[in-house]
């Protein structure tokens, strides 16, 4: 069946003569991670990855792929290879192993109570 698409008709018959092609490793270049800052004052957030031959083109492609309709004030790209991250096994180290309320505001909820309870120990003020 002949194509109904005029763009494809223009590529015929060469289109049909294209031999089956196989892509080698890295033919679609390397990967970058994309970070996007939505508004001024907010943190840049990781939004995904893409393939690009160099950082400049990565930035152009990031704009196409990750800011299509949403507003954005700045866009960052970082070669994936440059990122060092923790592993699943290390996830546990972010959980407090012992009671660490001594370094949290919730660890100091009884201060007022103590003040009321022992107020009588405080010598009366001279002024």
């Amino acid at each position: 069946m002949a194509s109904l698409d005029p763009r494809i008709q223009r590529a015929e018959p060469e289109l049909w003569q294209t031999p089956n092609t196989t892509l080698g490793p890295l033919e679609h270049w390397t990967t970058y991670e994309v970070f996007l800052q939505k508004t001024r004052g907010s943190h840049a957030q990781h939004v995904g990855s893409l393939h690009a031959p160099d950082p400049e083109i990565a930035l152009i492609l990031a704009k196409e792929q990750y800011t299509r309709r949403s507003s954005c004030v700045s866009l960052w790209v970082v070669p994936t290879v440059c990122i060092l991250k923790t592993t699943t096994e290390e996830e546990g180290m972010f959980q407090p192993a012992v009671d660490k309320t001594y370094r949290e505001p919730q660890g100091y909820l009884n201060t007022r109570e103590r003040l009321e309870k022992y107020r009588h120990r405080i010598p009366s003020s001279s002024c």
Partner: protein
Amino acid sequence: MYGNLVVRPEDIENWGKKVEQEDPEKLVEFEARIERGEKIEPWDWMPFEYRRQLIRMIEQHAHSEIIGALPEGTWITRAPNFRRKLALMAKVQDEVGHAQLLYSAAETLGKTREQMINDLLSGKSKYSNIFNYPAKTWADTAIIAWLVDAGAIINQTTNSRGSYGPYVRALERICWEESFHLKYGYDSVVYLATGTPRQRAMLQDALNRWWRPIMHFFGPPDTQSVHTEKLVRWKVKLATNDEMRQQFLDMYVPKIWELGLTIPDPNLRKNPETGRWEYSDPDWDEFWRVINGDGPCNKERLAVRRFAEEKGRWVREALRSPQAQYVTPLA
């Protein structure tokens, strides 16, 4: 745009063996994490079969987006006016963008983009069957943008409740863009439905042509599909093909009827007792025939992709840095 994951009997056969070989302790931990509603990230331990099924599913989804741009693209050069042309171009660009997001998500599981494209071109990997049908008139693009995208949204919204982080994140972005497609498609359909008798006839013809592929869209009926208890437990598959098909019929049949269009199936009706839609057999033999390469446009779709890869090769080569090394994307 994408139909549903088709699980074949041979997939299940392989998988029973593999799961038994997995580290039981890690498997328990993995399943507990999913049970708690937590997402799995690329750097987590995961069963071989989870990885394999997800690669297959996300890869098929990516191929469907990139091939799915072709039937509608047929009409870009002949859109009826400039606004419609801009809208169609934006939609087609969105679909290609979705493919990029999905290839990246699949890649986090360890299959390179080049391998995925090679498998598409060689016919080893499949894509949604519906894109092997031609868009004969402008009205076909309207039906595709409305009803095929509606089906895709049902499928993708369902999948976005899944367990694999990168896929879920990509789907959230995709669903958001698809909502424009649906509105644009419905507007195009309503415009023709409220137009001249010739426009109405063109729309009805398009619906007649696309109804069967749309019924095929969610995949074979549950009676023919393999029981996928493990895929459900792992939140890879979140609804059966028939559940999604029923949801689609519930939502869209009334809207089609409202426009005075006839659905080309005299047996289509909602059974008041069961609350389920009944319909004629949409010829599942045709579905399998087309998926295995014998559809009206299979050859053209792949020839176009092959041509694009081949003709773009010198550009990619010219830009390539000799120092580049491959790394799996992080997330």
